[in-house]
């Protein structure tokens, strides 16, 4: 009986019909992978570098532009049609984000969506910044929307627009890992002193 089960399992693997969890370069290492780094500050910086794989993915950077216009796509080309941030981050008068972006990804047209679709504030421009500069930005309450580190962590780990990065719809490549694994990394980064890469 046991042998029969093994045989069945092997044949299923050969046939490729068993669900599997691929391990790829787009996965995130868990915080425990960094436990071997004895120096606390160095461990904290390493945790942020790992989380930075998400922060510097096109899914995040496209809506954290320098200037008034977002970018789009894996190659981060200018958003088409021309749109601007506007006074509230949700577009110009007469050309709001909601003119095209609805509450959810719409597969019929391929247009992505979320109820809170918007651009990051100009103070949170990440494009053209190093990871160390992005780190300094997101820690600074004067530029991060007045958030404490705890509030920042809650935003990164639970905000649904941040979460869209892992559910972008269409043929878009999701951000690395999951929002849960990203949240675990940023929590460990804060717990280890929230040090920034040099």
């Amino acid at each position, binding site marked *: 009986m046991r042998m029969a089960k093994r045989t069945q399992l092997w044949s299923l693997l050969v046939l490729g019909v068993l669900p599997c969890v691929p391990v790829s370069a787009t996965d995130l290492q868990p915080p425990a992978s960094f436990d071997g780094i004895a120096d606390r500050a160095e461990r904290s910086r390493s945790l942020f570098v790992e989380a930075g794989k998400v922060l510097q993915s096109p899914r995040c950077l496209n809506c954290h532009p320098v200037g008034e216009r977002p970018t789009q796509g894996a190659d981060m080309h200018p958003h*088409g*049609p*021309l*749109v*601007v941030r506007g006074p509230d981050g949700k577009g*110009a*008068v*007469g*050309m*709001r984000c*909601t*003119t*095209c972006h*609805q*509450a959810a990804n*719409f*597969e*019929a*047209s*391929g*247009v992505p969506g979320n109820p809170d679709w918007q651009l990051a504030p100009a103070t949170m421009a990440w494009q053209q910044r190093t990871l160390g500069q992005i780190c300094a930005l997101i820690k600074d309450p004067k530029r991060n929307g007045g958030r404490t580190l705890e509030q920042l962590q809650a935003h990164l780990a639970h905000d649904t627009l941040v979460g869209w990065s892992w559910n972008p719809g269409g043929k878009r490549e999701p951000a690395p890992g999951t929002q849960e694994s990203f949240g675990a990394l940023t929590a460990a980064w804060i717990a280890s002193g929230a040090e920034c890469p040099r």
Partner: protein
Amino acid sequence: MPIELNVNGQARTVDVDPETPLLWVIRDDLGLTGTKYGCGIAQCGACTVHVDGEPLRSCSAPVAAMSGRQLTTIEGLSSRTAKAVQKAWVDLDVVQCGYCQSGQIMSAVALLEKLPRPTDLDIDHAMAGNICRCATYHRIRAAIHAASAQLHA
């Protein structure tokens, strides 16, 4: 699945797949063919309608999301601003082939309802998503300014 809509002030019920793009419900189920299909991917603006007074690309919105909201198509435009825009469009002979013009007018009216005295930059930003293959952009801009002037005369 029956979906209740309010289109041009009238209650309408359609029995369609809730994920159907609003555009096809407007054109095929309600017979309001003034709203045009151009690209189907929110890149041209030909399918623009108003939802609660804001412009919306009807090719990129599921019809189920429109319940409880006020939809206006080109056939239902009747405000003072809309009449000023329509007059300006005729006075300046804006239209060439005309295919994009219902979308252009919907966007222009939505802009003027919110910003009665738009600058050139305001117009560029509001109208950037409405493409005209005849390149009548200069006349569109002039007509929006003319409608604004008419509203303030």
